[in-house]
């Protein structure tokens, strides 16, 4: 991909983000933060590349492995805590 294609994806994604986030109900803003936290740890992709290409550069490999640990804390912790919060949102029990 050339730089312009990547930039196009980025700019369009910013617009998508703007509209999607405004449609999030304020009651769910805390789960929004925890789930965005989890998904921003997709930088683990970069960490995996570094760790697995390690043979040629040990420094890069160890940084990669450290980043994998940090990003995984976020991914698993972030999704789990979001799920825990969302499970608490209940509707009123209707009688009859």
């Amino acid at each position, binding site marked *: 991909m050339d730089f312009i294609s990547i930039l196009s994806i980025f700019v369009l994604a910013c617009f998508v983000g703007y509209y999607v986030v405004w449609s999030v109900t304020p009651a769910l803003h805390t789960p929004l933060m925890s789930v965005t936290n989890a998904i921003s740890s*997709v930088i683990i992709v970069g960490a995996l590349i570094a760790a697995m290409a390690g043979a040629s550069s040990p420094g890069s490999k160890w940084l990669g492995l450290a980043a994998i640990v940090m990003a995984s804390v*976020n991914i698993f912790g972030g999704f789990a805590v979001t799920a825990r919060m969302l499970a608490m*949102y209940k509707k009123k029990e209707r009688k009859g």
Partner: protein
Amino acid sequence: MHETAAAPAWVMLAYLISGVCFILALRGLSSPESSRRGNRFGMTGMAIALATTLVHYVPHAAPAPGLDSYVGPDWMAIGEVLVAIAIGAAIGLVMARRIAMTAMPQLVAAFHSLVGLAAVAVAAAAFLNPIAFGIADAAGVIHQVSRIEMGLGVAIGAVTFSGSVIAFLKLNGNMSGKPIILPLRHVINLGTLAVIVGLVGYFTQDQSPWIFWTVTALSFLIGFLLIIPIGGADMPVVVSMLNSYSGWAAAAMGFTLQNSAMIITGALVGSSGAILSYIMCRAMNRNFISVIAGGFGGDAIAAGAEAAIDRPWKRGSAEDAAFLMKQAELVVIAPGYGMAVAQAQHALREMADLLKKEGVTVKYAIHPVAGRMPGHMNVLLAEANVPYDEVFELEDINSEFSRADVAFVIGANDVTNPAAKTDKTSPIYGMPVLDVEKAKTVLFVKRSMGGVGYAGVDNELFYRDNTMMLLADAKKMVEEIVKAMG
């Protein structure tokens, strides 16, 4: 422009699908019913991104002499990666399970710091081994565009990290919420920022390691300097802002790796944090620049102490409160962070249940900055089994206070202060507030008459004719009211 060893089409497609899953994850949060499905979309997207990367970049062992050119995967390296993921997963899951809901802001700040540090580590790894990332030519000279992206990625990541650490310490009470004001801080901050920008620019001409590491170190420093002058009251804005930064850091790394999943996610998270910061600023009637400039909360507290003057006010008992509310048709409860600190939310829900049995309609009114992060109060009420369709936002409930017989204020203060609407000299003038004073009677639960809210101003509401002060610990008071009702 640079053409790197382009990933195969299926890999790019998989990352795109994972990016779309992340969009759907946020889309799901538009209502509580669809939110759980949204969270599953997020997990799916992450699983796709992880699996694709593991398969595509699987390392191969160095060919042994005398064998043919094909060699199997390097199981050792794969094993290391899986162990690293398992360690992170174990820590993350334990934290997610153990954390108290009142402590969510700290947890989120801690998670942000990890995203920031991981971004720094990835950028550093890419700098040390650019060929593996496909961003350098055979001689190891990194493409110019990649250097800018990498420089920005490491800078934003480092700011996110050190800023979040300070935010965590302030929220967790390890560090005073009072702003720490350094002399000449604006000059120092702007100067540091200018040096960082200049060095990132120079980095395109010269890829010496000292430039990269200086940018990293200065960015750690500025993240620290930016957050220490910001007071505790503004932490919701800070947490949202750091959320945004962690997104931009991911996006910058996405540019470096030409990875659409990372770019889409970065843009989503970046805008999410930016919008939340904007909502928080609007709810406090502050502008973003003045929050970032810091200093709010320190001097205001001193001013509030002087303003405490003797004026007549009415005190009520739990029995009075129970009687008034049982007679009411509509009771609107306005909770604040004080309720959560006193752990009164469960007792409060019990009280609401008793009232509902008496045929009273109970509604909750949430101010956007009630609690210590966006939406925090809603989570705390949900935890106490309050149905979410009884909980309303400021704009939706404000017109109902005039119909309400009782407004029950518990653990909130500034967000109910009518001075925000009338008193031009008040520091909170112009801030949108809950119109609780329009209810026939206001019951205000507060520990004592001394002490002011976060903004450090006296509340006009205490001295109104239709206000009855219930002075006690929030949890004890609510329990006594429950007893008096039974």
